């Protein structure tokens, strides 16, 4: 009995046990990111599992968003259960498949939620004003794709250990994501260049004489102000929108969960066929 218990403790993937429990708890741990315009003009708190939005004191709701978030909640809970079962019984034939299903889910959710305000702010601050060239984004996408392909070839040729292959696969997928983001930015720059030659400023000057727009949006976390002003004759009007953003407590738990689940995936034993080959 003692020997069996000792063997059991040694075979359990403890990273996965912790990750599985955290994944089940994570949807109920609070929001990850907030955005405020003014003081109550618009308030938004969000996570993959729910969004709360108010504008001018009125709550905004979308059935579509609510159901998508419900789907994400169920998905992460199921993934957490799979990671937990796979970690408790790592030598079963189904354990690797279940681990692969669930292990990187929270990691990609955290990456996604960080990238969206980052890219959104970048587009607002740098792309919409116009004057950007496609070159840097095309070069960035190309470099990312080349490195991703190189990583894949090198992993296939040189990496033997399962954990190193998995780590390289994760790094390669991140590079594919970066390449995709560069392509999205290149498309935005192209569209702004084609349909808004003078950027948003040019569009505004045409519509509102003497109008100027100074866009300043913080990146993921911080405070800034966007101002719109117009002048005519000796008169002038200015509208100042203070914008603040920040990461919330739920995001810290998401990072911890992602770290443990990645460690669980890397550490998890491979399929039985691979073990037999060894």
């Amino acid at each position, binding site marked *: 009995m003692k020997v069996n218990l000792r063997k059991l403790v040694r075979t359990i993937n403890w990273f996965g046990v912790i990750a599985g429990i955290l994944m089940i708890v994570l949807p109920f741990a609070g929001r990850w990111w907030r955005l405020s315009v003014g003081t109550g003009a618009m308030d938004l708190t969000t996570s993959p599992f729910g969004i709360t939005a108010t504008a*001018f004191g009125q709550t905004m709701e979308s059935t*579509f968003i609510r159901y998508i978030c419900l789907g994400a909640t169920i998905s992460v809970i199921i993934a957490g259960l799979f990671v937990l079962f796979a970690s408790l019984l790592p030598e079963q034939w189904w354990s690797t*498949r279940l681990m692969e299903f669930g292990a990187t889910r929270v990691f990609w959710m955290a990456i996604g939620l960080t990238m969206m305000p980052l890219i959104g702010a970048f587009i607002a601050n740098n792309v919409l004003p116009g004057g950007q060239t496609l070159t840097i984004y095309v070069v960035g996408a190309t470099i990312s794709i080349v490195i991703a392909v190189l990583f894949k070839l090198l992993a296939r040729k040189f990496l033997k250990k399962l954990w190193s292959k998995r780590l390289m696969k994760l790094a390669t997928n991140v590079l594919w994501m970066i390449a995709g983001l560069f392509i999205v930015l290149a498309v935005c720059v192209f569209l702004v260049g084609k349909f808004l030659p003078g950027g948003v400023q040019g569009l505004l000057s045409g519509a509102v004489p003497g109008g100027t727009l100074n866009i300043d949006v913080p990146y993921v976390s911080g405070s800034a102000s966007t101002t719109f002003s117009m002048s005519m004759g000796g008169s002038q009007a*200015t*509208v100042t*929108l203070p914008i603040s953003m920040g990461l919330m407590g739920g995001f810290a738990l998401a990072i911890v969960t992602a770290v443990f689940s990645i460690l669980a995936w890397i550490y998890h034993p491979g399929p039985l066929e691979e073990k037999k080959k060894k």
Partner: protein
Amino acid sequence: MNKEKILGALLFMLSLSLAVVPIIAAFSAHGWDPMATLLGDSNPIETQFGDLQNLNLKNMFGNPDFGNLANLGLADLLSLLQGGPINVTIPVTSPLNFPITVKNISGNLVSKDNNVTLGYFQLVNEVQFPAYGSKVLTIAGNINTAEALADVENHKGWPKNIDFENSSLKLDIYGIVIEGTIGSM
């Protein structure tokens, strides 16, 4: 190997279902109406700003009270000539469905013909209006006595063509600051 392939296929179907089923459920909950599904029933802009379509400025302002100017005694007149403030209180009713703060009203009183600044006015304290609320704005006016008297002496008469200049209004709506300045009215 067969078991693993079946498990792989089932897990793929599960992933697909978790992505697709919520979308189908959301649209079917609103009878496949895309606008209602995506945007819901609430429209805060319409709710909060819809009343502005029927805005009647006349109903916003009550009768101004010129305070100490209405019953001006000698002491008050001397105070006025020494640059003391004239306080005007204006009852205002907000036509808006949300709170608004009047942070500042200010401007200069000028004689346009003689290009002389006769005085200036300013809101005494910022005033917070609740939704549809009524409050009193107190505006203090001061006369630049020396310039005004010099103008009277130089031009042998009262200042003519008196106008407001550099009038500014500053509002705060939920932290969004709106400032306007009019060169001359």
